[in-house]
């Protein structure tokens, strides 16, 4: 059986259900790299160019964890997933960066994903991938259908309140199941909106267990995944100038929706050091959140240093502040 490796990194967190269903249906075995650990991060840091950001370095680590044990490596050249908006330019260059830096790379499935002109779609992309694996037309068509069904189920689960890792690991169950209601907020409990790239906030290693830590401090955590694409587009559309970063738009749209809901005590924004789009999006967010509604906002920058002390100090001070505001 052909083994297709998928690095547990970057857009794995957005498209894994699509890719897994497609390749499984095509008769391949899908192999995912292990969850991030020190060895994976170190390997990535050694291998990637210093100029890139932490998530890209980590991606290198996940690729290295798969090389040697898979026949193909799925690294789509992600340019754009919607008209007139783009994914980060570093994503676009991933296949080239890998080829330049890693010897003995398995063959890459690096089909370009570019829907910016409103023409391409996932079906075309998946079909090209299928042809690389030399599948026949009927099988490819069928695999495309299963893939898209899996992805829309995933989206549905997220909007129903399942957290992304739960939806990915199958805890969310079959279509249509509602997430069991979260425990009711007792006195002094906080509602915190956590914004940041999925590949940062859901990677327990580089986010230093941020979500768990917030929960243990008595906070209920909501992320941008709860907000539907329509609401995100509508909310982000209220900016005076159209934002052309897909991932940045998601965060701004979600932040505005959270502000308007009036249900949140604070917003935490996680940014990775060296991220170009985020250096602008973070600043936009901080200013607009303040202008629209004075919800406390905190920016957390994550980088290679693993010491959690700085993070804990900030989280403690932030939750302390929110609790005191509530009382006062």
């Amino acid at each position, binding site marked *: 059986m052909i083994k297709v490796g998928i690095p547990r990194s970057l857009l794995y967190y957005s498209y894994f259900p699509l890719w897994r269903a497609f390749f499984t249906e095509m008769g391949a075995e899908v192999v995912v790299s*292990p969850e991030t*650990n*020190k*060895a*994976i991060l170190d390997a990535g840091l050694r291998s990637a160019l210093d100029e890139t950001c932490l998530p890209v370095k980590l991606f290198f680590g996940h690729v290295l964890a798969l090389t040697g044990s898979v026949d193909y490596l799925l690294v789509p050249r992600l340019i754009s997933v919607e008209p007139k908006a783009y994914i980060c330019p570093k994503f676009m260059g991933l296949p080239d960066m890998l080829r330049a830096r890693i010897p003995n790379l398995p063959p890459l499935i690096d089909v370009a994903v570019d829907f910016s002109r409103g023409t391409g779609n996932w079906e075309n992309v998946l079909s090209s991938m299928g042809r690389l694996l030399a599948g026949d037309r009927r099988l490819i068509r069928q695999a495309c259908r299963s893939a898209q069904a899996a992805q829309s189920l995933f989206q549905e689960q997220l909007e129903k309140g399942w957290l992304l890792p739960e939806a990915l690991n199958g805890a969310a169950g079959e279509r249509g199941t509602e997430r069991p209601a979260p425990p009711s907020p007792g006195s002094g409990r906080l509602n915190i909106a956590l914004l940041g790239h999925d590949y940062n906030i859901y990677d327990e*290693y580089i986010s*230093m*267990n941020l979500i768990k830590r917030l929960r243990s401090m008595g906070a209920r955590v909501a992320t941008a995944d709860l907000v539907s694409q329509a609401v995100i587009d509508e909310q982000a559309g209220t900016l005076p100038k159209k934002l052309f970063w897909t991932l940045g738009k998601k965060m701004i749209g979600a932040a505005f929706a959270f502000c308007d809901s009036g249900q949140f005590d604070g917003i935490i924004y996680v940014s990775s*050091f060296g991220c170009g789009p985020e250096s602008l999006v973070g600043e936009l967010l*901080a*200013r607009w959140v*303040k202008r629209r509604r004075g919800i*406390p906002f905190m920016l957390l*920058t994550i*980088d290679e*240093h693993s010491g959690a*002390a*700085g993070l*804990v*100090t*900030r989280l*403690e*001070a*932030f939750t*302390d*502040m929110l609790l*005191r*505001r509530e009382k*006062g």
Partner: protein
Amino acid sequence: MELYLGIDIGSVSTNLVMLDPLGEPYLAPLYLRTQGQPIAALQRGLAIIRDQLGKGDLVCGVGTTGSARQLAGVLVGADVVKNEISAHAVAALRILPEARTVIEIGGQDSKIIILRDGIVVDFAMNTVCAAGTGSFLDQQAFRLNIPIDEFGALAGQACTPVRIAGRCTVFAESDMVHKQQMGHTLPDIVAGLCEAMVRNYLNNVGKSKDVAPPIVFQGGVAANQGMRAAFEKALQAEVVVPRYYNVMGAYGAALLARDQTQRRAGTGFRGWQVSTMPFQQRSFECKACPNACEVIEIKQEREVLARWGDRCGRWGVTGAEADQAVQQH
């Protein structure tokens, strides 16, 4: 008398403040150098305080803060272990209840705390870069061969402070050398450096914060009159430096300990013998998974007081159970 002890162990200094039940300092606050050995510094401080106490003096509450607050908390048996932001805010509000901004610059970090009606409503800390903190001033004073205590007064003699690039200390230093070789006077350069550091602080830590008076300036760097004057010039407002500016974290921790123990009677303070107890600290690399966490272990004789540093929590046990785990390990 009933007393409350506040301990702040930071990267540069270890501070201890003893308060009476009214929240006033009972003994002269202690400001000691940590010198990379937080346990030794803490024990030294405790011994100094113990020797000054009278017969009827009793510690009724202990609070710790600073980057080694967890460590200090375990060693002394703290009732409150609080982050620096909250501790500094509590202390500033005690000194100036109407304060609306707290500027805190220490050895390695700087913070801004925005207060409204006595509540923290916003704050920021410097990120990875320690540019514009006390260590840099120390280093420049040394380079110019001026004792650090005279550095600030020198800035006061300036006629026309020169403009120095303050964004990065590496650039600031080469800029200072350049200006000095051009013939600018030392006071003008020192005053220029203070202004550059203030600019840098306001652009980074103070970015998009509502800095409103009354303003309290605390932390070790507040001793520098040049910095205070530069802040007043940049903000066009009076900047208040409290009397105990350099031990405000410990002061806040003591106040928090007092509030906590007055509400819930009884303290976990382990007594003055802590100052002479032999503690062993060691670290080891956990081999249970590829994360290879560096676990720190604090022992008192054979008893494990605490362990931390592990991501998964497997080492977060104490007592006999932990000893067994280590032996098996």
